[in-house]
């Protein structure tokens, strides 16, 4: 009888653990974002800490192959051009495992960055250690980091670039731009989380 009870309790404990580990992890709004170092398409290593002289960073998980990423490429370049000089540059990261995501290998990343004339670093999450920390699930997926008075990067916005992926001309809400203009005024973004359809981040099963 005792053994049976212990077994049942153990089952509950294991089930709980399995349940928790099944949940999505990652930084929440207000969390401090740790440093990361990844290789850029120009071969140089780039760290988040290299941006400590800026006000913040617009981190965009994106990739080559995803139609939604492609639809947003020009808008990501525009964001970088608009906000780089006032303290919020774009840093793009490809989170996909190229062995299961055709066209997302490092060489193809170089080609794409050159063809499109990316004005920002396009980093390769080699080994896929960085995207899980952010809790990124798809491409494109934007995370705005804002440097606080302690010189730490704080996650201030998660989500979409704007409210119309397919049709840039008919965008009504520019979520990222709004969040940054709030930050520039010294207040937390009014909208901190938005959603959009994207391609799931590709990992080996």
């Amino acid at each position, binding site marked *: *009888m005792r053994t*049976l*009870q212990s077994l*049942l*309790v153990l*089952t*509950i404990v294991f*089930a*709980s653990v*399995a*349940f928790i580990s*099944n949940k*999505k992890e990652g930084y929440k709004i207000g969390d401090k974002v740790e440093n990361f170092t990844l290789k850029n398409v120009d071969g140089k290593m780039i760290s988040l800490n290299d941006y400590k002289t800026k006000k913040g960073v617009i981190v965009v998980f994106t990739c080559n192959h995803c*139609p939604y990423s492609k639809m947003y490429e020009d808008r990501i370049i525009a964001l970088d051009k608009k906000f780089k000089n006032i303290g919020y540059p774009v840093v793009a990261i490809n989170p996909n495992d190229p062995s299961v*995501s*055709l066209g997302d290998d490092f060489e193809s990343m170089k080609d794409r960055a050159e063809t499109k004339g990316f004005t920002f670093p396009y980093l390769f999450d080699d080994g896929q250690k960085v995207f899980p920390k952010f809790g990124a*699930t*798809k491409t494109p*997926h934007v995370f705005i980091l804002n440097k606080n008075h302690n010189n730490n990067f704080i996650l201030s916005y998660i*989500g*979409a670039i704007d*409210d*119309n*992926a*397919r*049709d840039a001309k*008919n965008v009504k*809400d520019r*979520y990222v731009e709004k969040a940054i203009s709030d930050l520039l005024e010294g207040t937390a973004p009014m909208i901190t989380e*938005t*959603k*959009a*359809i*994207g*391609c*799931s*981040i*590709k990992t080996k099963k």
Partner: protein
Amino acid sequence: MISKILNSLLVLVFLVSCEQKVKKTSEIITNKDPFLSKNKIENTSITSTIPILNYDQLVPFLNKKDDKTYVVNFWATWCKPCVEELPAFEKLHSNYKDKNVEVLLVSLDFPNQIENHLIPFIKNRNLQPKVMVLDDPDQNKWINGIDKSWSGAIPATLIYNKNKRSFYEQSFDDNLLTKELQQFIN
């Protein structure tokens, strides 16, 4: 004895309230499909009428209160993992369409690709489950409307009936999908 019953109850309540993977070890489903080959021969022409809906028009299909269980898969022809998991949904449709289960494939293909991508895809594959296109730009509204936990990545699947509702932002294979469905129909 009472505590034994209590413990069992606890486990039961926990299993019922939990999502997928937890049950993996406790349940073995035997799934023979004698009807599969027979059903493959069918060829109803669903391609001539693919409804294109906005979110408000889709909502009724996600909230039916009849006796059926609905398996709603969000996919697109351009989404590789979506296409890879389609066979699981086709098989489920074959095996369960006469057992009060309806599979609905909600395509997120772009409107300008319906004619030259989606329809040929459905025809070539002889795709049997019902297909609808969701065309609604305000994703921030309808993603949360479909499920608060959904980040927006596809593939994603909603299984529901009048008593129970679960959302899965993940890929399915045959076994896992059947196993999930069992929780709704048993």
